[in-house]
């Protein structure tokens, strides 16, 4: 029975990307319908980076500390990956970067919990610092890797990375103590504390997950792009926004689909829109416009239905009280 419920939920979840796909399919049948298979493959691959970043951001957002510095962190790990590549080739590149993301992730998470200021400016300050570390690391270094190290971008490795990271995310989200405790702290930190859950430990772990996922995303992005250029200042915030959009889309279809799948559906929807816009000759910068308008409407609808539901519950209890007392 449970499988059926999940399958039905998945169908609902897939409704949004399906509608968007059909919309562009009508405009450009050649690209989306007849030539559908290769387009679909491209869409699924292109959404992997944004999806992994979205997964990374999910937990720190659940705990209530929105952190944009994850994008700058990804670029820094890409630069570190090129350094490892030039030192020892493919394997050191992958393992070295993941190890670095652990180490740096710990330092960053420790600093964040030490400062314990719940404001977006903390993320901005970290972005400045991480971006300039990236710049210093890439000064007069060859930040391009050879094709012998870019096999991760091609099949089957790209889907292995997606599914592998997805399984880790699924485990953390729906099978781990950390996931349950993160949602509890995000809901009501005081009640969680009285049940013995330490808010700072959960914050630390959430930030660590973000950093490690940024490391994984970095290895994949570097394999796809085969090169990286440090972006100074706040230039990297753009990709953090698109990851944030996926997390929001996942929130809306949260009733039907778990966040793990929801965020990937969000990422796929956004790459359908970006390919769609290119195929009808629009500037891909409209991508964020279309997604934002879309999210605004969806969020208004969700919040309005929620407030109506809460009011209904309140009236129901009151009416029950009157019925009960008039009876005895």
């Amino acid at each position, binding site marked *: 029975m449970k499988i059926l419920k999940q399958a039905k939920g998945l169908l609902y979840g897939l409704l949004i990307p399906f509608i968007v796909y059909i919309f562009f399919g009508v405009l450009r049948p050649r690209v989306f319908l007849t030539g559908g298979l*290769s387009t679909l493959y491209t869409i699924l691959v292109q959404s992997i980076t944004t999806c992994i970043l979205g997964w990374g951001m999910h937990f720190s957002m659940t705990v209530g500390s929105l952190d944009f510095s994850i994008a700058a962190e990804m670029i820094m790990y890409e630069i570190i990956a090129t350094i490892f590549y030039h030192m020892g080739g493919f394997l050191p590149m992958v393992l070295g970067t993941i190890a670095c993301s652990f180490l740096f992730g710990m330092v960053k998470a420790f600093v964040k919990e030490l400062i314990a200021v719940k404001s977006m400016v903390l993320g901005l300050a970290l972005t400045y610092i991480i971006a300039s570390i990236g*710049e210093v690391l890439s000064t*007069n270094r060859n930040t391009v890797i050879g094709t012998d190290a870019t096999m991760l*971008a091609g099949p089957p490795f790209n889907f292995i990375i997606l599914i592998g990271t997805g399984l880790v995310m699924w485990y953390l989200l729906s099978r781990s103590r950390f996931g349950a405790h993160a949602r509890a702290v995000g809901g009501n930190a005081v009640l969680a504390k009285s049940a013995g859950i330490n808010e700072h430990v959960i914050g630390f772990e959430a930030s660590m997950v973000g950093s490690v996922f940024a490391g994984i995303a970095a290895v994949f992005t570097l394999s796809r792009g085969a090169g990286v*250029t440090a972006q*100074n200042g706040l*230039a990297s915030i753009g990709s953090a926004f698109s990851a944030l959009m996926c997390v929001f889309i996942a929130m809306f279809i949260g009733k039907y689909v778990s966040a793990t799948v929801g965020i990937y559906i969000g990422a796929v929807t956004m790459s359908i829109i*970006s390919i769609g816009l290119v*195929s009808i000759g629009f500037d*891909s910068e409209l991508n964020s416009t279309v997604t934002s308008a879309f999210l605004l409407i969806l969020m208004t609808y969700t919040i309005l239905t929620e407030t109506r539901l809460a009011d209904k519950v309140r009236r129901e209890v009151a009416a029950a009280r009157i019925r009960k007392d008039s009876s005895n």
Partner: protein
Amino acid sequence: MKKMRKVLAGLLTGAMVLSMAAFTASAEDVELVNFKMGYFDTGSQDGTTVPLRNNLVAAIESLGAEGVSVQPAGNTPDDYLDALDTLISQGVDAIALPWVSFMFAGTPAAVKKCEDAGVYYGFYWGVDVETLGEDTLAFCQDSDHFMGCFYQQENDAAYAAMETLHNYGCDKVGYIGLAASNELQENSRDYGVLKACEDFGMEILVEQRDQNVTTTAEGGATTVENFLTAYPEMQGIVIAGNTQFVMPGIDQVITSKGLTDFKVAAIDFPDAMETYAQDGVLVYDAGAHVTGPVYLTILAANAMNGTPLITKGQSFNQQYIKLTSSEEIEQWVSIADEIVYNTDELLQCLQVVNPEFDVEAFDEMVRNYSYADIMARHHAE
């Protein structure tokens, strides 16, 4: 045959410059005026900015000047104008202005600031003097501080890029580039591309000018994938900007898809250009126009030492290094990191050291900038 002619020309000018050096007094006994040369430095580590910076710093030292750099707070025109104020307030005597950063807005304002401050100034990566527009010309037309504009024949470079693609049979192409500059100027990459389309019957299927995408390698990969998905009939791509960012991604996608007859022609040199040529993806690249600020420093040094080469700002046509085959690309890459003009050559460009050197010789030097010229001057053994 064409290649032979070029090598010959390089040898001739190299000999000429060397011979001149023999007659003039040696550099040591002339006391050079120490002046401050201002320039912008975003700290970017990409393949075009690094050689530009290295050449400029070397030139400043050779000409006995002091380099003053400033990092703009952002990349809006206002940020660059604030950075310009910072340079002026540090008492710089001359400033190298990147026209591209003021292309959108701020050219007249920048020129006005330099005029009010009485510093020598000139544009590189720009357009010729007339195309600056009459607002700007009103300030700098007849000023003796205006050192003119160093421009490249953008349209020729773009035209040659398209021509190479045409020769490879790639007539349906995608376009990746910077945001469109104002009215389509005659000397612009877009103009060259459109002209080539008419002449060779080629077609631009789609354009990608979104700076958030074209400034990352993965963005390059995504763009090419989108192009090929939306326009399977596409045969090649012309890149008119941000090549240093997108090229790695493009090469990666094309080689992994095994599209052997899909060709890319670009302007601006990316890192590791030789691999893209060996992969058979990159067939044409015009770039290494990294000596604009060096020429401006030479003009400034002459002016500061009391022997200005020019009295009125004029245009100098700076040459692109046009590489049309993987051999040429490999040759160029072998000497790409070298400093284009060493100290002696630069000192020879000062009238105070070498009286015969005049604006014609300077213009000649600017025009002759090519692979052969460098080989002749530095590797003539």
